[in-house]
């Protein structure tokens, strides 16, 4: 081998080393744009607002929904290489757009083979009883009661129709103890791409028909009574499901 061939060989080796290092570096710093899309449903069908379409699960009459929203918080993605925690992770999910869906965008998160996602419905106690502005927490917004009581976690407003009689439905459910966390397994490699979407259904009927089946004519409003709020929280604890195709 001539000296020049050696030199060229060395150069190629150097390029491979540097290039490989760069590739490794590149792999470690790859980012992924993740979208979480939440679609409001009533049972398996998309939620329709302002029409008396829905049976009172535990009693007579049909009801309509004029407003449905909730706080989604503290999103965490888990992987063997480490967790990703969104900062100021407080999102007000509302569904009054045409698509009846709400999207959380997590731009440029570390790209990993995440195996699990978890988040809460509600606001953790530390944030719940402050006047601070974080994420979508808005002390002057519709979800705020006042700083001494905290936020409504889940809000459903509507009306129950029984014959000719109408009864307002007001579910303003909060209190720190009613934070509920859900966790979902993510199919292997699903998120190991540069842009991924996880789609969830939010079934409003589960709020009234979960571990307890509620009669809306008897329990038309849930606001300040703690035992009622807890029953509803145990129901909404399972209102979100991950869509798998």
């Amino acid at each position, binding site marked *: 081998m001539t000296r020049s061939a050696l030199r060229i060989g060395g150069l190629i080796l150097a390029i491979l080393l540097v290039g490989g290092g760069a590739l490794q570096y590149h792999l470690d710093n790859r980012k992924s744009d993740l979208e979480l899309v939440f679609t409001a449903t009533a049972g398996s069908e998309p939620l329709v607002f302002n029409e008396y379409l829905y049976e009172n699960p535990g009693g007579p009459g049909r009801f309509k929904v004029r407003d449905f929203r909730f706080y989604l918080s503290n999103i965490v993605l888990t992987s063997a290489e480490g967790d990703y925690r969104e900062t100021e992770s407080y999102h007000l999910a509302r569904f009054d757009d045409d698509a009846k869906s709400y999207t959380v965008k997590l731009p440029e998160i570390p790209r990993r083979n995440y195996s699990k996602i978890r988040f809460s419905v509600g606001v953790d106690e530390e944030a719940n009883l402050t*006047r601070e502005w974080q994420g979508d927490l808005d002390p002057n917004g519709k979800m705020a009661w006042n700083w001494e009581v905290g936020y409504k976690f889940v809000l459903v407003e509507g009306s129950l129709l029984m014959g000719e009689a109408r009864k307002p439905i007001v579910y303003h459910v909060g209190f720190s103890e009613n934070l509920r966390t859900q966790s979902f397994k993510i199919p292997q490699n699903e998120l190991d791409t540069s842009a991924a979407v996880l789609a969830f259904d939010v079934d409003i009927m589960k709020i009234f028909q979960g571990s307890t089946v509620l009669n809306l004519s008897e329990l038309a*409003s849930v606001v300040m009574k*703690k035992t009622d709020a807890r029953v509803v929280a145990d129901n909404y604890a399972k209102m979100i499901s991950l869509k798998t195709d």
Partner: protein
Amino acid sequence: MWQYSPAAIRNFSAPFIFGRFNIPEDNPLTEDAFQLGRKLFYDPRLSGNNQISCSSCHIQALAFTDGRSRAVGVSGVELPFSSMSLSNLLWGPRHFFWNGRSPTLEAQSLLPIQNPDEMDQDLEQLVIELAADPEYEKDFARAYDDVNAENIAKALSTFMRMLISQNSRYDKFLRGELTLTDEEELGRKLFVAHPDVKVSKRGGNCVDCHSQFLTGGFKDAYDGFSNNGLDGEDDLQAGLQAVTGNPDHKGLFKVPTLRNIALTAPYMHDGRLPTLEAVLEHYNGGVIISSTLDPLIVEANNIEITDGTSIGLSLNPKERKAIIAFLHTLTDEDFVSDEKFSNPFEKK
């Protein structure tokens, strides 16, 4: 080449509890724009007959209202609506006027100038008149560039954005500088409470529509609009429906700020209620049912309803008086006497 660039407004502060706000990128807050806006706000040349200015219906001592049920402008014809108080417009809904038809202050500010029943001024004519005044030419050049309608709107908007009321007794209470009287404190507690007879929790339910700190309507989407039961089905006006086309928005009007409310009688969008006592009577038992009546008003009551017909808060006289006492803590004497918001043509 040296170019004059207007200075940003100094010492501009606002309580953090008011929350985040947006200022349009193409209309930054500057001292020159504010001073120009202030002049325009008080200048009767903005009207067709040169006799009415913005300040004719938005009087500082009355928290920028006019004390009338319904506003009267150049034509002498009563408008359908009451002059709205101007304060803390940086926060709250981005939908201006009682029916929310204007998406920005810039768009809003030119409409009363042109309305034949308000100021009845032709915009082109106004620009000609103002451009002929060397003082104004100088003011516009410093704040923006030319005298034109867009810059008139921008300057008026800057003036209105700076109308910040933040020094009422309630603000001082929130800052920990004073304690409220027992009656005011009872009123405050009722103000921020949704009543729930199931747990004997008494409430005035005000906070279901009027936010706890700003005391105006909520800012997201159309959350800041409500049908508060003034009219029955047959008398419902279009309200927000005129803007959205949504029949569920019929009869919904903008929830106004309650800051300085003791100074802004008469009340409601058409000024039909003369006093705060009358307002409390309305919410206490005078609510009229219609299809778009706010369900939070229907539902909120301090007594168990058995017949399904009674709508109202059913507060006792002491509680109603306490809420009114609390509403008086929202009066900000500094705001209504602050010289920087006053008429610049009246030399003190």
